[in-house]
């Protein structure tokens, strides 16, 4: 894992903590505004029998928005996180190495079922990202996917998304 990561940019920062903190605070503020707007629509008054449905969400949004504004102010004025690196390029690359396969796995699950997708994910991840021998990877992935199928489908009766392969074998 490490050789590839170093080859692709190493320790140069991909994002500063200040920037990320600011962006996250802004996003939270945006969420707070949207939530407050929707709660206002639902009704945020105090009726005779107590608060309306939107009362709590409205004031929680206001509270969250205020806290986010405070956070923005702190980052801009108090100069916190000066010079701190949130994530380096090498780190971001490694995080993406697991996140992107994760997304692909979810998409594959929708079409192929979770067990086939899990075989592809495990085998693929071990071969391409772990640089582990192909036979070891495929064998591990096969055993793992079968074990999962057995545990959930047969032993514990928990229903999972299944695809054409399982249908072919009559499950």
């Amino acid at each position, binding site marked *: 894992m490490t050789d590839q990561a170093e080859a692709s940019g190493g320790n140069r920062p991909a994002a500063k903590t200040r920037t990320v903190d600011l962006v996250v605070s802004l996003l939270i503020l945006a969420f707070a505004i949207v939530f407050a707007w929707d709660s206002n629509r639902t009704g945020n008054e105090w009726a005779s029998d107590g608060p309306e449905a939107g009362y709590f969400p409205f004031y929680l949004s206001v509270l969250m928005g205020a806290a986010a504004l405070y956070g923005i102010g702190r980052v801009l004025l108090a100069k916190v996180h000066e010079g701190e690196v949130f994530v380096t390029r090498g780190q971001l690359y490694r995080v993406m190495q697991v996140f992107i396969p994760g997304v692909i796995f979810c998409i594959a699950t929708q079409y192929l079922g979770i067990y086939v997708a*899990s075989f592809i994910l495990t085998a693929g991840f071990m071969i391409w990202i772990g640089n582990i021998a192909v036979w070891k990877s495929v064998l591990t992935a096969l055993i793992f996917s079968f074990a999962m199928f057995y545990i959930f489908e047969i032993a514990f009766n928990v229903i999972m998304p299944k695809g054409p392969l399982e249908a072919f074998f009559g499950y």
Partner: protein
Amino acid sequence: MEAFNLLLHGFEVLLTFDKLLLMMLGLVLGVFVGVLPGLGGPNGVAILLPLTFTMDPTSAIVMLSCIYWGALFGGAITSILFNIPGEAWSVATTFDGYPMAQKGQAAEALTAAFTSSFFGSFVAVMLITFLAPRVADFALRFGPPEFFAVYLLTFCSFVGLGKEERHKIVISMALGLLLTAIGMDTVSGQLRLTFGFNELLRGVNFLVAVIGLFGISEILLTMEESLSLRGHAAALNPRVILQVWKSVPRYWATLLRSSAIGCWLGVTPGGAIAASFMGYNVAKRLDKNPDSYGKGRIEGVFAPETAAHAAGTSALLPMLALGIPGSGTAAILLGGMMVWGLNPGPLIFVEQKDFVWGLIASMYLGNIVGLFLVLATVPIFAAVLRVPFAAIAPMILVSCAIGAYAIQNAMFDVWMMLGFGVIGYVFKKLDYPLAPLTLALVLGNRAEDSFRLSMISSEGDLRVFFSNGLVGSITGLALLMLFWPLISAVFEKLRKKPAVGAA
């Protein structure tokens, strides 16, 4: 004596072949989960929860709580042998545990860790056995206003006593409460915050969020650090174990002190992490030779481990007696109880005797069996850590996805889990605390319901929260907790002034 009889009944419930098997399975899975960095108590319990959906509640809780004990034991293995805390509450164990392993005393350190874990849990379970039924009995008198006051107290103590930046605690908690508001409003039947998306009608499931926030985000963080694991080998032989056990009575003061700290912090929503540090620091401060800590003192292992386990166990007391979890893992167990169709709260001691006492009996048995199990299997679990992370990461990812899907049979939940994974990753890196978010997610609806039920009965009069001595003092305590930082700052000033005057 009544508690004792009920406990015996609990053992009767527990001592069947099936349940003992599930217990062993849970312990092994738990140690496994505790040893792997990137998984841990709350994550492990959340991911393995779907396994229990089709079990009866008693078997389910026995297995899940054993996963929890196993994870508590397992965290110590990685901290001592690899200097990587498998759990946040094992951080303090690395201070002296790893130096001991470096000096070739890994076996002593591990025995000390497991023994003190066992001791801490045992004290806490005794506390639960005798105190929880009384608390529950007392809480039977609670109506909606009292319950809301207790929820308020829980939330306020997080804000007031939290170590993170205050605005981040507030954001984390408000976000959790807002997420629970999504979907159908239980009182008026109106739709809230769904913005026309059908998938949001169900609301945000607590367990889906937890699996993402803890499980997925930990994989991302572990990948980022690209851990290269280099640990010390350890084989435990009976001679070393007996040697350490013989020395245990010498440390009785440390053990008892740490147990007390742990029980106290576990019951209040502060949790095992704070307890382990406090246990360590108090032991260090009271020692004649504090500088020798951090270089491999066996007390430095005893103190934090006892406290962490006492806290981890006693966190189940408010969950059982009041339906309020004292820790993240307790919150997930509570979520599980709702899935199995139980209604957490004081009534459970009346309505579900088998469940409650089976659980308490399994705490005793699980800890004893767990102690011998980990002592016997340390080398195997230490070997687990040499499995490349590239093989483990996809398997954890798949298990998370299975867990998230199984809760409501919804693919949307799997996507939501990935989203929460990203939120968890960013929040952890920016020091947003996740515990208030978790707590808010599990308690949000119940808190709002109890508030609005109180309002309906009092016809919208807020004074209902001060209407009698009980509810008034809980509400008062909650407000005290909320403004604690201000109050303690004022005290600090008042104390300094006379000192300056005297000088």
